[in-house]
């Protein structure tokens, strides 16, 4: 008995982890896949039956589903783009040797990331309040008319994006800053000798060397932004109308408000489908570029 344990201890040690993984990930995955081919309304016991691809067809022809996907793509695209550009610029600023305050600023930057998304969302919601929010107060000071920021579709989505940018730009800053601080000085010395301007140095030295870090920040942000729920739920609950209803919110309504579990399972898999396509196409491309950058 003891010999058996000793010989196979490798496998025995990982069994607890495998069991947990199976219960939490693998079994639900397979079960949800099976449910996505059924009609199952939780409040109607006895109505559960096989319907094949009907759920998928219903969803892919549903205006509301595509509107959610569009909102999600716009949200992810805009937030991540702004965060990457802003993050890069601020990291570049912080990298300047004259910034003695760097440790202090770095600590302050972590605070938005540590705040719970729900708290961030609620705070921004209060700031955008029409009657007593600080945003309208500042706007009035400049002389512009106050607005109902969360009440118009365009401004509501903008505010959600701004909240996300506020919360996650520091994440990009920290990664990019780490990248900057790992850059070797030799290529720059060689560039000065060769008479390169600052701009050329940036383009031919800095940027290629930073690609792995930029790639990392980009991938992590896209994955996380795709899953956004808390902030939007607390700020607008998907309104006004459907203008801020991201796909996770849409799924929440279908699964936990209307209890159409079959449809919800199908939506989950379609969402996974989009994520898979994204990973196959983009992550591979970005990872290859990043890894090539590291190899140099």
């Amino acid at each position: 008995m003891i010999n058996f344990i000793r010989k196979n201890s490798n496998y025995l040690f990982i069994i607890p982890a495998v069991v947990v993984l199976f219960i939490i990930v693998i079994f639900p995955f397979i079960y949800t896949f099976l449910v996505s081919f059924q009609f199952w309304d939780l409040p109607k016991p006895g109505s559960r039956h096989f319907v094949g691809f009907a759920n998928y067809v219903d969803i892919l022809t549903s205006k509301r589903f595509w509107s959610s996907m569009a909102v999600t793509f716009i949200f992810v695209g805009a937030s991540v783009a702004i965060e990457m550009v802003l993050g890069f610029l601020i990291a570049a600023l912080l990298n300047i040797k004259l910034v003695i305050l760097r440790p202090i600023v770095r600590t302050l930057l972590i605070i938005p990331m540590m705040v719970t998304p729900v708290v961030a969302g609620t705070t921004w919601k209060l700031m955008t309040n029409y009657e007593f929010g600080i945003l309208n107060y500042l706007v009035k000071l400049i002389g512009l008319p106050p607005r109902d920021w969360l009440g118009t579709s365009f401004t509501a989505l903008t505010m959600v994006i701004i909240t996300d940018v506020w919360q996650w730009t520091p994440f990009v800053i920290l990664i990019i800053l780490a990248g900057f601080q790992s850059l070797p000085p030799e290529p720059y010395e060689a560039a000065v000798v060769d008479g390169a301007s600052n701009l050329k140095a940036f383009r031919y030295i800095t940027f290629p060397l930073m690609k792995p870090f930029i790639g990392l920040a980009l991938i992590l942000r896209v994955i996380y932004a795709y899953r956004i729920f808390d902030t939007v739920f607390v700020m607008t609950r998907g309104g006004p109308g459907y203008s801020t209803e991201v796909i996770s919110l849409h799924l929440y309504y279908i699964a936990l408000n209307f209890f159409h579990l079959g449809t919800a399972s199908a939506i989950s898999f379609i969402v996974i489908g989009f994520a898979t396509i994204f990973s196959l196409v983009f992550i591979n491309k970005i990872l290859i570029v990043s890894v090539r950058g590291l190899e140099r």
Partner: protein
Amino acid sequence: MKINGFLFGVVIIFLMIGFLVPVFAAEEINVIMYGAPSADAINTLLPSFEKETGIKVNIEITPHKEIHSKELLDLTSGTANYDVMSMDNPWLQEFVRTGNLLPFTKYIEKEDPKFIEGFIQNIYKGYGEYEGEIYAYPYQVGVQVLFYRKDLFEQYSNDYQKQYGYPLEVPVTFEEYAQIAKFFTKKYNPNVPTTYGVGMAAYRGGPALAEYCMRLWAMGGREFDEKWNVQFNDYIGVKALENIIETGKSAPSSYYTMYFDEMSKQYMSGNTAMIIQWDAFAGEIFDKTKSQVADKTGVAVVPGTQPMLGGWALVINKNTKFPDAAYKFVRWVNSPELAKEFVFVGGLPGRLSVFKDPDLVAKYPFLPVALKSYETARKRTTPYRGGPAIAELEEYQEILGAGINEALAGQKSPKEALDDTKIEVTKMMENAGYYGKK
């Protein structure tokens, strides 16, 4: 690694005792309630119930947004985490169909007939009856009524007459309502003290539906016809939606992101002339410690006389371990002896005695108006008065509420919003089997 037999045995025995304990435990029930004023009322009076019956009651108060999912999950999963639940009356069909609601039949047979007769009958049946069985007692009734600043109506009646040519009276149609709202809005009429003529709550979902349905019904429209075909995108439906948009100009611009309680707060702060609000909020509005306009408010039946029937009832989970205790609690909340006391601490039970009691009427003048409103109030799940009800209220409310909200936010024209909503609602009804099995 020897297993100590003795220790093993001791552990097993302790586990067995642990499982047997619940059987001998005192009766204890878990109640989940919506956080309306009546929940506080019940909490206040609870100690007397516990002392009298020895039943321990744990009340969990849940916000409106989560209570439906929580209760439905508890009912469908067969676990009876909650023995008693407070149910918004439109959910009755849905809850009964899960098969896990306890019918009150055997208790009613033994019940004193005066207890049953004491309920306002169409509320008692409306909230609790399904296919001949009673599943609920109405402990918190609700109907929309019009609250208005009677002091301002008196003060400005001459100005109004000068402007429009006829006297200022409580509006009986929604066109009048919109007009009076405009009159009392400072930006259109600098002479009035109120910033807004009306407050409205048209948040996407239930509140949007509340504003819409009473106008649709008042104008003679219907949501569905007898065959469950969608009808709310006809010209009456569009007119109703346009009326909300028109009236909305006299309300805060964020009115379509407001919920009922925010609307109340706005009115109670004194800068609004009228609101159409659930009578459950009347306690607060007439409370001098909370409201600036407590002694300046008058109450009337809503314009068009077709208010929405709100209100909550108590139901029992069939899988409860203590059905008798649960029924005792439900009955206690609805008992005639306590009804009056409940009103004084903020509740509003569905008993006729409450609305006719002279002391209560003296303190809360809205009671007779509310009683009159119950005569014409309509359930939002029935396509026409007296007709059958749809069980999928949550989804219907969500889809139609969002569609209305889109039009109010200016994203779509009223006709477009209603047409698009018709497509979605039709799809929902199809999937739910209303047009024949697929």
